[in-house]
């Protein structure tokens, strides 16, 4: 008798198990995008880099608190430091300084999201399944927006929690709506980045081309914002009318404008230091206008992606 026996039935068998109805494929696509992103070690590093302002402030506040608690003479210095600190502005700084790392994160998550699919003809796989282009685009978009949201919201909540527990007597809870406001701003930033990167990615079939394009738009417009900011600061606010508006004409500018407008601050120097020479900050833009601009830009890039994603030639 032969000892060679088949160890498994390798012939084709039909699948008779459950099949979910169409309508939930976007989550499969989003999950896959997130899973691939989480495998990138650089992403984990960038998560910490994006929260650097909050981390530094946490360390500074912790030591200031510890030192003054053990040294009554330092209480006066602590009081002066706390008086200089504008709490909402710390969130503005945390949010603003996260923007550059957030650009890199958005590129890591999204530059190749559709471009790589274009290169590998993956659209044939997606669109021949019970998954339409709405679900495909929404899945890709959520797969970028959700991680960005989480990466931004976690340090914000940690910082808020520490401040609320430790610095209530120094006016931390003066604005009871500060946390809800931040929780409204962060999704806007996530949506804004995700929409732009998805739109740009859909235009290319190489992730590096999409990355270069978004980075180019970001840095060129950001240079313009810095220029306007410089003009404003050097003229101490005595500038022609358009300058304070043009300051917000960039990727960073729009998001900082949204943050300033919703929090209701024009900002101050970081880390509670005195503004050198009393440099004035560019005032917050009109909330409706800046939100409208952010929404318009997001919609335009999503529409670009919508037009580019097609049920391509299936059979040659």
């Amino acid at each position, binding site marked *: 008798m032969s000892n060679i026996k088949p160890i498994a039935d390798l012939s*084709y068998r039909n699948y008779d198990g459950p099949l*979910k109805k169409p309508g939930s494929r976007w989550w499969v696509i989003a999950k896959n995008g997130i899973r691939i992103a989480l495998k990138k070690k650089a992403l984990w590093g960038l998560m910490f880099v994006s929260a650097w302002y909050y981390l530094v402030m946490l360390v500074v506040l912790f030591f200031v608190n510890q030192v003054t608690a053990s040294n009554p003479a330092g209480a006066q210095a602590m009081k002066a430091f706390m008086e200089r600190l504008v709490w909402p502005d710390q969130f503005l700084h945390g949010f603003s300084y996260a923007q550059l790392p957030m650009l890199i994160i958005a590129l890591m998550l999204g530059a190749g999201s559709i471009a790589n699919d274009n290169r590998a003809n993956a659209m044939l796989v997606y669109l021949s399944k*019970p998954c339409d282009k709405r679900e495909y685009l929404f899945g890709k978009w959520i797969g970028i927006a959700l991680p960005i949201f989480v990466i931004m919201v976690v340090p914000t909540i940690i910082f808020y929690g520490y401040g609320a527990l430790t610095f209530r007597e120094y006016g931390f809870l003066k604005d009871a709506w500060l946390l809800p406001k931040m929780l409204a701003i962060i999704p806007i930033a996530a949506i804004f980045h995700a929409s732009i990167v998805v739109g740009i990615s859909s235009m290319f079939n190489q992730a590096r081309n999409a990355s270069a394009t978004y980075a180019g738009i970001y840095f060129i417009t950001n240079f313009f914002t810095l220029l306007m900011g410089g003009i404003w600061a050097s003229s101490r606010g005595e500038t022609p009318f358009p300058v304070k508006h043009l300051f917000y004409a960039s990727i960073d500018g729009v998001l900082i404008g949204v943050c300033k407008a919703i929090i209701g601050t024009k900002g101050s120097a970081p880390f509670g230091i005195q503004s050198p020479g009393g440099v004035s900050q560019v005032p917050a833009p009109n909330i409706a206008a800046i939100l409208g601009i952010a929404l318009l830009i997001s919609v335009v890039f999503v529409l670009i992606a919508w037009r580019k994603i097609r049920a391509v030639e299936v059979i040659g």
Partner: protein
Amino acid sequence: MAHENSSGVLSYARLVTVARISNLTVRYGNFTALDDLSCEIPEGCTGLLGPNGAGKTTLLKTILGFVNPTSGEGTVMGKDIRTDGMAIRQLIGLMPEQDCHIPGMTAVGFVSYAGELSGMPPADALRRAHEVLEYCGLGEARYRNVETYSTGMKQRIKLAQALVHGPKLLLLDEPTNGLDPRGREEMLDLVRSVSHGRGVNVIVSSHLLPDIERVCDRVIVVIKGKLRTAGTIKDLKKLAGQPADVELREPSLAFSNLLMDKGLTVAPPKGNVYRVQSELPPEELLRVVQRAAIESGAQVRGFETAVRTLEEVFLEALTS
């Protein structure tokens, strides 16, 4: 056997219809890709033949629900192609002609992801991905990145992702594209085995007539957006009047003269083979041929019903 029903649609007796297309017209601007096309695709394995630009692509796109017809209607597995595109795609597996994969994934990841996209729960999709990869001969390479696969392996993984959710209808576009002879044989064996006795209906679009002949039971020939002919390969290859090919040991003028004297039509021989045409049933014709051979002293080496090649069928459809 195919026959026309009362509405002029070609249909097959005793076979369940997988797809039914009625008076389908698809236009891209001024260009008519499908022109009042009607056909029924029965269960089993069907070959879709036609020259480039004939409308095969558009027909398959329409079946997949990607293209909205200008007029006409159709159903696939009882679902309306105009309104039930998603439901149709849940029942269909597509193996495209072009290389396609999800970048950065292993084979098992890719196929299970394709299963999830088709609606399978993640655990089922993963288990099924392993099964299907084994079946397609990629068991050993299932943890390799698909981007490192050879052309033959990429063809197999395309078949695996199309099969993973257990489709009732499989659309295969040029399944042997880029394969070496051995790979081609293996792929055709896979297609034949999945399409016969496994409950999976298959439509194969290919320019390679031998491939179609090898795996399909019937063909649909589409030319210039119109259905030119359809039916089982066996029926299409039959010649009118059911002539017989008689092979002799060596050509014999006496033999052919004797047959003609008996009222049969005998074509000039090709080598030692005479094509004999008559109204007689095959058994009676065989007896007549045997008698003529005995009388003329010719030695009969073979007798078979004459058929055309699929290529001849295709060329006739093309030129008619």
